């Protein structure tokens, strides 16, 4: 007993020592310094997505302005915050308010104020979409991106610093994106039972909303059955992405994008905001720098052929900085 107690409290091999080290490692992992320019690029994509989303992709909230309030079914959030049923005026204000706030946020100015304004507007607009009897289950992780990316503060696309704040925000986005996969496998077990993998859920999805491209899948039923096993396996093992090398991490992200493209082709469902979240795993600032150098080169080419060199010159310092800044 006495020995056990001393083992808990003392020495490097003790339980507390181990716990301290694990917490320390977890803390270092959560706050791994990452490029501030990556956050700037991701924020730009997130805000651009918000505009496309409220105007084109997810418009059911807007139409709820026209639905009779008899169909309004407040969610917990609406009951707590006393949110009213939708009206045409309210949905118009939220839709165009989101667009204006996102455009302003894309300038990079007042990142917290504008970022959180976009977050409130977008969440409220989603709330209106979901409080008429149908919740889209793929749109929760994006709330984390909207809430936490502004915490980094000012971040420019050419910002060459690495920061712990950027690391934390990106890590939180990555974690919630992967939680979407992992916890959706749990939901399948909770609502569908372990036998979900052997059920005809995908057949049902294709029957109800299959694209013409997907009809042949019904003729070869084992394909959809097999797909359910692969999906469950992929979702359950999705957290493995955090221990993979950079190269394999990118491949896994690519694999998930292929999966989402296949799903879209088959049943015209895409988890759009979640796809933006998955970009947090990629070295976005390098792609942005590459794109900038191409643009400079293109513009230089128009100016009379000297631009190739100018483009390279513009691109290479960036590349060097980003590649070389792994060590602080």
């Amino acid at each position, binding site marked *: 007993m006495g020995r056990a107690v001393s083992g808990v409290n003392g020495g490097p091999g003790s339980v507390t020592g181990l716990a301290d080290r694990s917490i320390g490692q977890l*803390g270092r992992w*959560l706050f791994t*310094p990452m490029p501030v320019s990556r956050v700037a690029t991701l924020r730009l994509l997130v805000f651009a997505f918000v505009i496309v989303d409220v105007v084109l992709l997810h418009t*059911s909230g807007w*139409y*709820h302005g*026209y*639905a*009779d309030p*008899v*169909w309004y079914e407040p*969610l*917990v*959030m609406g009951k707590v915050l006393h949110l009213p049923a939708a009206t045409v005026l309210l949905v118009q204000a939220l839709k165009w308010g989101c667009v204006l706030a996102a455009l302003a946020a894309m300038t990079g100015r007042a990142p917290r104020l504008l970022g959180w304004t976009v977050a409130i507007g977008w969440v409220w607009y*989603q*709330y209106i979409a*979901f409080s*008429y*009897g*149908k*919740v889209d*289950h*793929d749109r*929760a992780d994006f709330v*984390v991106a909207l809430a*936490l990316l502004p*915490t980094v503060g000012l971040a420019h696309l050419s910002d060459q*610093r690495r*920061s*712990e*704040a950027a690391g934390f925000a990106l890590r*939180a986005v990555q974690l*919630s994106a992967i*939680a*979407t996969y992992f*916890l*959706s496998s*749990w*939901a*399948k077990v*909770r*609502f*569908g039972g372990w*036998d979900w993998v*052997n*059920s*005809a*859920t*995908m*057949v*049902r*999805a294709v*029957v*109800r909303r299959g694209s013409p491209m997907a009809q042949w899948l*019904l*003729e070869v*039923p084992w394909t959809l*059955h097999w797909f359910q096993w692969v999906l469950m396996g992929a979702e359950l093992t999705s957290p493995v992405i955090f221990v993979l090398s950079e190269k394999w991490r990118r491949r896994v992200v690519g694999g998930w994008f292929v999966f989402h493209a296949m799903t879209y082709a088959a049943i015209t469902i895409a*988890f759009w905001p979640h796809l933006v979240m998955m970009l947090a795993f990629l070295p976005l600032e390098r792609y942005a720098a590459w794109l900038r150098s191409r643009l400079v080169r293109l513009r230089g080419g128009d100016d009379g052929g000297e631009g190739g060199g100018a483009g390279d010159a513009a691109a290479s310092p960036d590349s060097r900085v980003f590649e070389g800044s792994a060590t*602080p």
Partner: protein
Amino acid sequence: MDRLGRVAKTWRIAVLLALTVMFCAGSLVGNDHWWPFSPWRMFSTSQAATGSVWSTGIEVQTADAPGEWVRAPLTPENVGLNRAEVEGRITQIEADPSRLGTLARSHAELRPTAAEWTALRVVRRLIVVVDRKPTGEVRTEVLAQWDAR
């Protein structure tokens, strides 16, 4: 490299922990009403390999062709609600079919140039599936009906 102070790290960890607890609680015991902390249950229900897949739709009569039922899109663009939202309220609709009149009103607002709907009914189509394959047999039943008159 920019480092964070103790306070900045502490509140960030607290936020992350709170989010983790909420998302996990939502997945373990929550329901759709918990959004954004509702369970991630896309395509999570089990469908028997042999049975029927049901799909709900609406049929309407217009002022132009009274007495003739035609299928109408059950979409937000057309009636302000989508199919899943109507499917989720079948019990309430059956108890009070006059609710369907609100869909006709929304349609008139959203599509002011289209012919007015004078009657509307909710129809459920049961598509028979045997061993994961649709047999081609479809059964149709009328769940509720509303009449403007």
